[in-house]
Structure formats: C-alpha cells, structure tokens
C-alpha cells in the first residue's frame, strides 16, 4: 500500500451497468487497475467489459476479494449503496456520485467511521497512483509515474494541475480528488498523514478553493505534523463573493474561508503558494531541488 490504492487493489464498481460506470470501468482497466467485480441489483450473472456483475456487494466481495468500491449509484440511492459496501467489509469507498444530500452524507460519514470504511468523495474524481491502480474517474492521460503527491477538492482543476506536473517531466505518486461538497468523507487534514507516511512521495501539491475552512485546517496540520515540502494553489481568489450559505455559515467559518486567509495560513505553514495553476510545476521543481531531490 502506498496511499489508499496500490497493486493489490481489487476494485468493485457499484453501478457498473450505468453509462459512467461502464465508461470508467474501461478507463480504470486501461490504467492497469484490477477491476474484479461490478454490482447492479438485478443484473447479477452478466458481465461488463469482462468484469463479472453481482446482485450484492457481499456476494461480489465473497467471490472476488474486492477491497475498494467505486460508487456511481445515483444520489437518491447512494447512501444505501454505501451502507451495503460498509456492511460487506469494504475498507475504502470512492464515491463519484454528485448531488448527494449532505444530511445523507452525515449518516454515511459516521456510519463509515463506525464500520471502518473510509470515504473519498462524494462528487469526487477519486484516487489514482500511476503505475499501480486507479479508483475513480481522473483521465489517464494526465498522469506520469513520479514522486509528487496531489490532494485536491476540485475535479477538472486537479487534472489541469496534474497534467502540468507531468508535462514538465515530473510525475505523481498518488493523486486524490477529495471532492468539494460541504461534507466530504476525507478532508485535506485527514489525507495529509497518508502522504507523510508514504515513502514514495517526496512533495505534496495541495489544490484548494475558496469557501469553508478545510485549507486553513490543512495548514495547521502541515505546520504541526507534515515534514515534506508543500506547494499549494487556491482557486477563486478573483471570484465574487459566493452565493452559498448565509449567516450561520459565516459563523462556523469565524472569518475564515477567503482565498487570502487560506493563502496566508498555508504560507505561514511553510507552503509555497502558486498564484495561478501554471505556476505550480515551477514551484514544485524549485521545492524538490531545495529538498535535495531532482
């Protein structure tokens, strides 16, 4: 195991017979991932792209040893699909589905904790470790094996930045798109220790956004426990004031949540913060050289 997925990863796709489920099963396979099972209730006994489809997660796990589930199930059914994965003993669920009500996600998050099932997502691109495995939907073309870790709350912006890193001849150890919903299963703060512990990661790129306080909390974690160099980019510095959440949201944030506050917190924690996405590869290269890495 490097970070979350590796060559022993055996992917199960919940909702494999749907359009996205099928498309991304193929892409994961092309990435070199062992996609061992799919689940669509009522479609058990069929196959998608050579992957056997089962009626239940328990059966799929029993017969294939799947240990990561990628969930494409539509939002109204996502909670129950996730609970099924938990109850079948799956330790990692990557939830690609968007528009899951946050009240459902609260239940899912706490039930996952109880059951020992980590969630990446929802509404996320998932996890990819080039040369090892992918559980999610990040385009294969952006990757190049290497030693830069990437964590992000965004989708396409992650692809943009990973692509930039690959293009300058560097490459990625593991990239995690955590998702940008109000309630996510794994935050920056919770993902950081995985990269700290990963011997295959030399430097971490953190891609944040305005809103919430996840980046500020990440900065605290970096300051206290993260010893590797960090390069960050926060999207939305030029964006107009958001339309989401009223007074109570501001209260929770206690004055944090702006691009300026996030950049300041990260810089105070020692991160190099890019002003624009295309500055990231340069800063990565500089910091790697500074840390004595090519």
């Amino acid at each position, binding site marked *: 195991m490097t970070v979350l997925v590796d060559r022993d990863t055996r992917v199960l796709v919940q909702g494999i017979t749907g359009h*996205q489920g099928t498309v991304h099963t193929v892409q994961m396979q092309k990435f070199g991932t062992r996609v061992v099972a799919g689940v669509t209730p009522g479609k058990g006994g069929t196959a998608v792209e050579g992957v056997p489809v089962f009626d239940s997660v328990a059966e799929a796990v029993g017969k294939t040893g799947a240990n990561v589930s990628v969930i494409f199930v539509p*939002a*109204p059914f996502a909670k129950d699909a996730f609970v099924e994965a938990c109850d079948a003993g799956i330790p990692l669920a990557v939830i690609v589905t968007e*528009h*899951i*009500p*946050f*009240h*459902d*996600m*609260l*239940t899912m*998050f*706490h039930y996952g904790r109880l059951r020992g099932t980590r969630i990446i997502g929802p509404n996320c*691109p998932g996890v990819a470790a080039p040369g090892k495995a992918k559980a999610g*939907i*990040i*385009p294969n*073309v952006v990757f190049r094996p290497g030693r830069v870790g990437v964590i*992000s*709350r*965004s*989708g*396409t*912006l*992650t*692809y*943009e930045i990973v*692509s930039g890193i690959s293009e300058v001849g560097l490459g990625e150890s593991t990239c995690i798109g955590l998702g*940008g919903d*109000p*309630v996510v299963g794994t935050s920056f703060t919770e993902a950081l220790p995985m990269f700290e512990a990963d011997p295959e990661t030399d430097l971490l790129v953190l*891609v944040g*956004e*305005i809103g*919430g*306080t*996840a980046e500020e*909390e990440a900065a605290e974690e970096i300051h206290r426990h993260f010893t590797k160099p960090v390069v960050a*980019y926060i*999207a*939305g*510095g*030029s*964006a*107009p004031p958001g339309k*989401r*959440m*009223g*007074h*109570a*949201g*501001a*209260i*929770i944030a*206690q004055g944090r949540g702006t691009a300026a506050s996030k950049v300041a917190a990260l810089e105070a924690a020692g991160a190099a913060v890019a*002003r*624009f*996405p*295309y500055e990231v590869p340069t800063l990565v290269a500089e910091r790697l050289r500074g840390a004595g890495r090519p």
Partner: protein
Amino acid sequence: MVKLTEGRGKELFRKYGVPVPPGRLTRSAGEAERLTREQEVPLPCVIKAQVLAGGRGKGGAVRFAATPEEAKEAAAAILGQQFQGETVREVLLERRVAIERELYVSFALDRSLRLPILIASRQGGVEIESVADAAIDRQAVEPLPGLVAYERRRAAGTLGLAGPLAADLDRLLQGLYRLFQEEDAELVEINPLAVVDGHLLALDAKVIIEDDAAFRHPEYAELRDDRTPLEEIAREKEIAFVQLDGNIGVIANGAGLTMATLDVLSRFGGRPGVFLDLGGTDDPNKVTEAFLLMSRARPSVVFLNIFGGVTRCDTVARGLVEALKRVPERERFPLVARIRGNNEAEGRAILQSAGVTSLSDLHDSAQAVVEAEKTAAAAGARTA
C-alpha cells in the same frame, strides 16, 4: 438552495411546534385590511415584505399598523416595491408584540466535524456575524442520539433562560432540530428569538432547504431561488450559470477550473461577465445549449476552457461546432478555445475542420482572450 421567505419558514415552524406570533400571508392590500378588521390578525400589527434579503427593517420593508386602514396603507406601500432587486409580491401580517429580550438560535452544518451544530447567543436581533465570538455558543449534535437534554439545558444557560422560559426553549429546540433534519435544511435560524410576555416567540424565520435533497421534497419545487431569466434557463438545462459585471464570457467545466480561469483572466486585467460551468456531460447537445445561452448574454468575447474528463474534448468540440451554426450573425462573438484532456486530439481536429483554432496553454489562452476583448471593445467604440 431554496431560501424560504419568513412566512413560509413560519409555516414550517408551526408544523414543528416552534411558537410564532399569530399572523397571515397576503398578496393584496385589501385582504390586509380585511384580515385585521375581522381580527384574523390581531391589532396592532406589523406588516413585513416577504423578500429574501436581510435588513428589511432599515429598508422600509417593515411597517406597523394600529387600524385596518393603516394595515391596508402599509401593505399597499410595500407590495410591488423593489427591495434589493426583489419585487415584493407578498406581505406577512403579524400581531405586534412587546419584546422584552432578543436572542438568537440556529441549527447549521459544521463541515469540519460533519455534524449539525446548535448555535445560541444572548445577543439576538443583530446580524450574528457582528456578535463577538465569545458571546456565541456552539454545540455539535451527534446523529445517533440526536439533540439531547443537556445540550438544550446548556443552550438555555447561554441564553440566560430559566424556569418556564427554559422549558419553552427545550420544546422549541426539539422542534427546530426535527425541522432541520426532516426538511433537509442547510440552515434554520431564529433571529430574533424574543421573550414576549414570559414566553418565547420566533419573530423571524430563516430556513434554507438543500437543493440536493429536492428529490425528497417536491413541495419546494415552486420555491427555488429567484434567478435571472437566463439563470433560470441554465438551471433547467443543469448548467451552472452566474452573471457578473464584466464582459468576457467564460465556459468551463468544473467549479475549480472555472474559478482558476477567472483568476488567470483577472491576472491579465480581464473582467468576466458571465460564467457557465458545463459540469460533467458527454452530451454534445448540452454543450450546444450552453453556447446558445452564452450568446444571449451578449459577451464581447468568449473563453472556452475545457479539461476533458467525464466531459470529453470531442463532445465539447461537436457541441460547439453545432452552436456556431445556429447562433445568428448579430449574436456572434469572438472565441478563444482551449481544450485539454480526454480525446483532446479528436476535439482539436473537429474544431480545426470548423475553422476554430484551439490553444493548449492556459496562460497564453487567457492573454489572447483579454487581447481579443480589448480589440472588440475598440471596435465597439468605433462603431458606437
């Protein structure tokens, strides 16, 4: 999200046992007179514009009446008015009460803890952002037991309530928490929560229902956020569409990339006017619709910035080409296209064959957009 007006919020409050003053909603001044004359709303009363914006008191959107005639006049003065861009279509008539104290309570989401939190402050009636942090109490509520007694007692302590008022609060908070859960609310806020004649009354109601839970709440379908007409069309087509005050149109996919695109445009002095997030799609028709929508917003130049993932580059290219065929001559706009990612080569080829040059570098593309906008502005100045 669905913000409910005060009146709708108070209807929910009643349903969940949160006490509110006797009151009625109406859309006519004559009805306001009748309601007060027939004592369906006791006098003296307050007449409040049912708009979503805050600061109604200072803005003249809240008036008082001691007679049915005054109620009619006040309603007539408010109905039809513009308030921070919203037209007042409805007023709430409510018994005017003698406020002894103004407090604050709400339930919201704590994203870090992934738990609902109960927020309480003794300083109500003012914007909660203006209250000192130390004067605000926050308690996370665990999902398994739900809101429990000691949490309600602590809130009573924070609010300085004892005896029957603490008992009132105990019931009120249980109802408010159930509302937060069962209605899939993002926020339920009572500000002010007033002490009136030895009892608690919710004098205002702010309830925001989460959009993603709409499938469980068809009853809110009519109440979605007020939007501009173009925003409304965009919503129907599931395209995120935001109007700003610049003149560059941005079409991108994904919130993060869209924001990053704005950042880079700003770097070169560009002022985005409309931005439009395709989200994840592989339907070329949706892309075509997005372009047609954009053309109706009359941007001086459009920047298409796509990183192909779920939304593949060739899908976008096909949709764009179709749109270009369908946009009327007079609605044409200069276009800078940058496409990367899945099926990039195919997309580039499709655009090429339609005479559209696409770039690949973000920095250079943004610079080109701002140049094009300046050129267009200069041309506009010439033609004007």
